[in-house]
């Protein structure tokens, strides 16, 4: 059987700041969610420009 990619046989790494106490895994997931949120706003959606152009011309969209 294949072993775990990461060695999990130890207490979790944590990020501590004042009263905030988070596991490193949760901090990574929160960071990824923020990254995906920003990318979802700034990245162009495939075909969005052509749909807008068709709408501007009055074509059925």
């Amino acid at each position, binding site marked *: *059987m294949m072993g775990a990619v990461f060695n999990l046989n130890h207490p979790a790494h944590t990020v501590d700041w004042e009263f905030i106490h988070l596991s490193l895994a949760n901090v990574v997931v929160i960071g*990824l*969610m923020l990254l995906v*949120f920003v990318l*979802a*706003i700034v990245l162009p959606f495939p075909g*969005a420009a052509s749909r807008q152009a068709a709408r501007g011309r009055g074509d059925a*969209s």
Partner: protein
Amino acid sequence: MSSVAPDPRATQAPEKSWTVKVREAGVAALPPEKLLPDGQPTYVASWIYMFGVASIAALIVIITSGSILALKGPAWWHYTGIGHFFNSIHLWAVELFFFAMVVHLWGKFWMASWRGGRSRVWITGAVTFLVAIPCALTGYVSQQNFDAQWISTQAKDAMNSIGAGAFFNLTNFGQMYSYHVLLLPVAVVALVSAHVLLVRKHGVVPPFELEQRKAALATAAPSAGQDGSSASTDGGAQS
């Protein structure tokens, strides 16, 4: 000349059965062209609008993999390779479900998606998120291993500390398993169904029309346009 008195029963509309009333109310609230539309508005062509349907896709995988786990049982998911595989599929689908749901929540919060009479859409979505949390957490205590025992004893103390221990016994596996595979999933699916039907009824919330608002402010008289009160923030009608 003779006249025949009209039959009073013929002038009265026949009384509608409850099935007809329900059908007519349903069609009035959600006509077929709204329930299953031909297309979506142009503004939906954006990645930020994809996370709602991503959540639903993850939920389908969760229910499918969870049903297979329930059919096969703990020995299968602990001691066979294919059981481990479906156990992992179930876990990671839940991770994706919450990931997509949080991004969906952020997007809709900053879009003020309760605009235009969509308050019930927002409320059903928020309640779905809250109900999904215990639905997932009861899965941790349903694993049937030492990890589940450890988590259940820790969570039992948490429940007792907030005074909820009389209602939820985290060390009662039968109770927690019933919550995890029946009561809470049924609630989540019912809430998601209501949420989607309300989105169909009211349409997908449009983005703020910032460009039009800026143009309106630029062309308006300075005294009338300073507060921006003349600009609509509802985003207009669905195309």
